[in-house]
């Protein structure tokens, strides 16, 4: 509605004979698009510089004598400008510099890199190897999950599209990974962020996580890895061994099985066409079993359907056939789990997690293709997250315009629909994180003092 009104005004240069109120509405309306002008306003009034600075400082912006004043300045940011110009190794010593640079350059994308041994701006003065090096020293443990990596198992969308039938795959990924990061690896300060279009990012910010080596990051990524797909193999998930590892068992029992049986079977209509059920049959390495099932399903096409959904019905048949007492081959019984894992288990981008110097998009950026803000996702309520309701740039600008005469500049963004996200970011993530950072800084300082004292005589 809004767009048509504006277009009609600009096209015809006529003002309809509408009331003043409507004219105001027209003036307040913005085109539902992403563009540099809107972005400028966003960076001018909404982007949370102070929060990003506080986060990236990890407590070193305090007054404590043990605070490392150089810490924030050694962090790499990168900007992608309007015409795809890419600026790497941007660094800032104070939040005011970060703010003025972003406002001036208006980057379409902001990435965050590692904390280096020295200020990235001075990197050319240092060697690549040996003693005096320019090298990453800290970096959050990060994960990137993109729904286009699931294209071979989702029938509703492909590529950049996402809908409510397939988005729950991301929800499942969050649940599985988040639980493992906390229960298995002992991490606490974990931020999940919507990537703006078709996926999610995860930032693990515990001190221990930030100091992991590339090899240790790779180990965690490999621990999470199950799907080993490419076009050439039929069996992209292979779960060997008489029994599964406790991590896989927990993921299956607590998340994957129910999701597959209660939601995905029907939302993706996994067995409803020959093409689709053949794909499942391809994953079963026993001709006798597959031809038996094929025979039954082929027949079913002609007979009248029972009330039960055909996908659920056929899945039950398949399970029964594979898991019945007749099947001695343990590999065959395992097919049931393999099918579930293949369709639902998280597919991570391994390269993103394995290298300290990999750059990742900053939270609260706006996605150029969708205009949506990269907002945090609460892992405890991720079932309720709906990407189609995430605030867009245009929407936020309209809200700002409607807010009109607010004079309290600091809280302008809080009054918009982004306010909820910002409050969540501050209370659920920042507060506990900074408390923990403060404790870490103070305790390492105390240890240092103690050792100094013991030698002072």
């Amino acid at each position: 509605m809004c767009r048509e009104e504006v277009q009609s005004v600009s096209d015809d240069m006529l003002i309809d004979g509408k009331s003043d109120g409507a004219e105001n509405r027209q003036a307040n309306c913005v085109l539902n698009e992403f563009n540099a002008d809107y972005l400028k306003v966003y960076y001018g009034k909404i982007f949370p510089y102070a929060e990003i600075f506080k986060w990236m400082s990890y407590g070193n912006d305090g007054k404590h004598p043990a605070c490392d004043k150089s810490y924030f300045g050694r962090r790499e940011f990168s900007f992608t400008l309007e015409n795809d110009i890419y600026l790497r190794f941007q660094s800032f010593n104070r939040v005011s510099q970060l703010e003025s640079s972003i406002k001036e350059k208006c980057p379409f994308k902001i990435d965050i890199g590692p904390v280096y041994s020295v200020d990235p701006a001075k990197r050319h003065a240092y060697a690549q190897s040996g003693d005096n090096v320019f090298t990453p020293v800290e970096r959050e443990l990060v994960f990137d999950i993109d729904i286009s990596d699931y294209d071979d198992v989702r029938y509703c969308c492909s590529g950049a599209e996402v809908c409510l039938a397939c988005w729950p795959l991301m929800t499942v990924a969050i649940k599985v990974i988040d639980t493992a990061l906390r229960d298995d690896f002992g991490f606490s300060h974990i931020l999940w962020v919507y990537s703006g279009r078709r996926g999610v990012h995860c930032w693990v910010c515990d001190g221990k996580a930030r100091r992991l080596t590339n090899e240790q990051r790779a180990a965690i990524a490999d621990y999470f890895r199950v799907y080993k797909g490419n076009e050439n193999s039929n069996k992209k998930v292979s779960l060997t061994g008489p029994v599964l590892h406790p991590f896989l068992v927990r993921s299956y029992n607590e998340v994957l099985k129910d999701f597959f049986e209660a939601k995905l079977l029907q939302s993706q209509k996994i067995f409803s066409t020959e093409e689709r059920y053949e794909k499942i049959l391809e994953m079963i390495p026993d001709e006798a079993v597959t031809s038996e099932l094929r025979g039954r399903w082929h027949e079913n096409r002609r007979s009248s359907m029972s009330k039960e959904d055909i996908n659920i019905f056929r899945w039950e048949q398949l399970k029964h056939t594979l898991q019945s007492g007749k099947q001695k081959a343990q590999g065959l019984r395992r097919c049931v789990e393999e099918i579930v894992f293949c369709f639902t288990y998280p597919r991570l981008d391994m390269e993103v997690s394995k290298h300290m110097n990999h750059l990742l998009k900053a939270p609260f950026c706006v996605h150029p293709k969708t205009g949506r803000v990269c907002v945090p996702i609460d892992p405890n309520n991720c079932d309720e997250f709906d990407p189609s309701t995430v605030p867009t740039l245009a929407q936020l600008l309209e809200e700002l315009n409607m807010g009109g005469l607010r004079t309290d500049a600091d809280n302008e963004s809080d009054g918009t629909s982004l306010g909820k996200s910002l409050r969540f970011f501050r209370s659920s993530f920042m507060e506990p994180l900074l408390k923990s950072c403060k404790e870490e800084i103070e305790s390492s300082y105390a240890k240092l003092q103690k050792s100094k004292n013991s030698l002072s005589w």
Partner: protein
Amino acid sequence: MEVIRSQRRSAPNDVVSTLPLYRSAPPLEVRLEDFESFAMDRLRVLKGISDGLSRGKKPEGMEKLVSEMWKANMRHPQASEVVNKDIISHFVLRLVYCRTEELRRWFLTMETALFRYRFRLENLEAQKALLAEFNLPYKSVSSAEFESVKDELGQVARSISQPLPTADAIFYKVPFEEVPELVAARRVFVQKGHAFVAMNQVVSLVVTQFRSLISKALLLTNRKWMSAIREQEKDRLTPIVEALSTSYLGPDYSQPKEFTEISIKDIDQVAKIFDACKLPVGAERFDKEYTYSIRHNYGREGKRTDYTPYSCSKIISFTPGVGDHHGCPYRHFSEENLRAALGRMGVGGRAVEDVMDKVRNRHYQLACTLTFEAVYGSSCDAGINHPNQYFLESRKILEQKNHTAA
């Protein structure tokens, strides 16, 4: 300082490990000849390991390889000197391999692999003792804690086809980042940041520690080398050290043992063998251009200098100019040309793909060895390290064939 004793007996049949951790340089007097020869012996072992790893040998194969190479190269006439040879050779090679990033990385990989497989070959008591030497703050899990995670430990064991842990099984609770390979393969139970490592997985733990030790030591050694040792020893140890990293370690081909007469008639036969290191040429052209240079190289023309022929590693490092016909073909030929050359030599099918795979991964000598094995249908375990070696080995096989034909 590490106390070196070749055997420590804690119980009648218990021999505690002789696997040193190389934490400090031994205060021993070393003869200059031993300085070099001990290092060469150890280098042979490390290069054998490098070979085994790049051929993709499985762990059982590597264990066997390490055991054999160690026995073959690291003996000493005096039994009491065996451990000293071990330690001295390691420290000499540290000097050799500390000097660049690439050398350090290679040395670290090979020494870590050597340590890993030697550790695996030790008995349980020796392994426990070695683990204790690292002074890690990791305790074995109490029986109460074991009970609380017994089910999960059992699940993990069964998932990797290991027997279920009994009540007296030893598990170590370590920070997960200390055993990255076990975590990556999901071979351990991980809970709240800790991995539960079974006794038979302890090798992973000690290898991580060992690698860290040696890595730090190499950087320190480099610093000392650059700041003091290199200059101080420039007339004594430094030339030996600098030669060791590029040394060729096969049999000595600088002194031709057999005085091989090559007549023009033999050229086609020889040309076949030398196909790999020179362009395949017909007899006439060979006569004009190459007979002279062959006789020159063998001291029969011109300067009468018997040039020590270059080893493969030297040849691989050359870049031929335009019109030059030498240089390692595996390094410098285009894929198309190399496939054609292999075809002319009678290598086909799977063997060609194996050779090309080695070339792509820059293992030029392994590619040559595989070619030799494919052409002659017999294996060459020592690997090709020198063109003369290729020639002599080929000649042996061709002579055998001639004999049986005759």
